[in-house]
């Protein structure tokens, strides 16, 4: 199945052109806001989908919560990409926040993204790589992030070492690399300077993949 993802606000024209410019769309996953005008726009897109025999999956979103929106989009991409082909993400509809979340998730997940021009309604492809952003991490670094995510985002360095089953120097090397890349930070225990804590940046949860 070929899947198109799209954000939608009040203007159906920000979504509908991509249904024709992208070949063979079988399903449209539509992220839209809670405002009543978004419902009207959604109904119009649904009408076009029915005519074109495109299956429609609706995702009503809290429009002003960036991390919530990004997390839900990422979960969908992970789910769909296991069995289906995600053609692209059309990111120009919806609130600024929704569009920004779609842009960021497309970069992180390596999904092709397109923009529908606000005045001409032309579909503009964006220069994104179709490979996950986490290709910049080693398997061990990905494992450390997953471990941190599963344990509430902060752990003692010694707990991480035990969790990944590696030598102290190997663990420290990977932790330093993640710190250099800016996705985690290190701090000392205020009572015992020998104890170090590792904290993952909140948004780094978006870099964790659940195989």
């Amino acid at each position, binding site marked *: 199945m070929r899947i198109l993802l799209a954000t939608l606000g009040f203007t159906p024209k920000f979504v509908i052109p991509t249904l024709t410019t992208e070949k063979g769309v079988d399903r449209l996953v539509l992220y839209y806001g809670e405002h009543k005008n978004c419902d009207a726009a959604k109904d119009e897109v649904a009408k076009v989908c029915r005519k074109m025999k495109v299956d429609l999956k609706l995702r009503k979103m809290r429009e*002003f919560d*960036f*991390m919530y929106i990004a997390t839900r989009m990422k979960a969908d991409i992970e789910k769909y990409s296991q069995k289906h082909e995600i053609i692209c993400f059309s*990111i*120009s509809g919806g609130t*600024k*926040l929704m*569009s*920004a979340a779609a*842009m*960021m998730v497309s*970069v*992180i997940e390596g999904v*092709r993204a397109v*923009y529908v*021009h*606000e*005045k001409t309604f032309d579909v*503009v*492809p*964006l*220069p*994104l*790589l*179709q*490979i996950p*952003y986490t*290709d*910049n991490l080693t398997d061990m670094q990905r494992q450390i992030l997953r471990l941190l995510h599963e344990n509430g985002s902060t752990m003692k360095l010694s707990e991480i070492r035990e969790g990944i089953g590696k030598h102290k120097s190997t663990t420290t090397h990977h932790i330093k690399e993640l710190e*250099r*890349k*800016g*996705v985690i930070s290190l701090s000392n225990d205020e009572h015992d300077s020998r104890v170090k804590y590792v904290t993952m*940046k*909140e*948004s*780094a949860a*978006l*870099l964790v993949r659940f195989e």
Partner: protein
Amino acid sequence: MSEKVLISTFGFESDKIITAIRELPFERLVLVMGKDALKKPGFIEVKDLCDMANTTLNKVYVDVFNFMDCFKKITSRIEKEQNNDNIVSVNASGGTKVLGDAAILGSFHCGVQAYHCEDDLVELPVFLGVRFEDRFTEDQQNLLKLLSRPRSYEEIRDSTLGIRNISKSMNELKRRGLVDEMAGPVTRYGLSREGKLVKRYI
């Protein structure tokens, strides 16, 4: 001496930029905006604030409805600041959707700290210092340049660029959706639509 530079997208309203100014440390502010924002009260408020704080304010003008124009100007500004050893961060919450999205993509391309700032400040998970071109080997970069026009395997092999492992690089670029294979009496390889876009930023 290096400076802390905050590059921020800007529309007509000062609210979001003021939240960013309060939360993010910087010594110089670069506003990326449309020319018509200059006359708006929001801009005058930010300018006054910078004057009072004795902070330099730079402006970069873009077509706020043209994604590629915004993206190109933001990335080249980030690169200029990086080349001068300045520490750059980006706030992507002001201005049009196009401008904000272009700033997010630009931050990921250049590997600089980026923030989205509505009611709360959210730091985006950019790998600092990891640039767009770092995701390609030298061979892959050369191959992308060479395939500006479609070429056969033999033409690639005989080129002066000295690409060492053509098949490996080619397969990887195909996997990333950047190179298409064109069937014919002789198979040729050329850049896909995305490949052409990507090549411009390497």
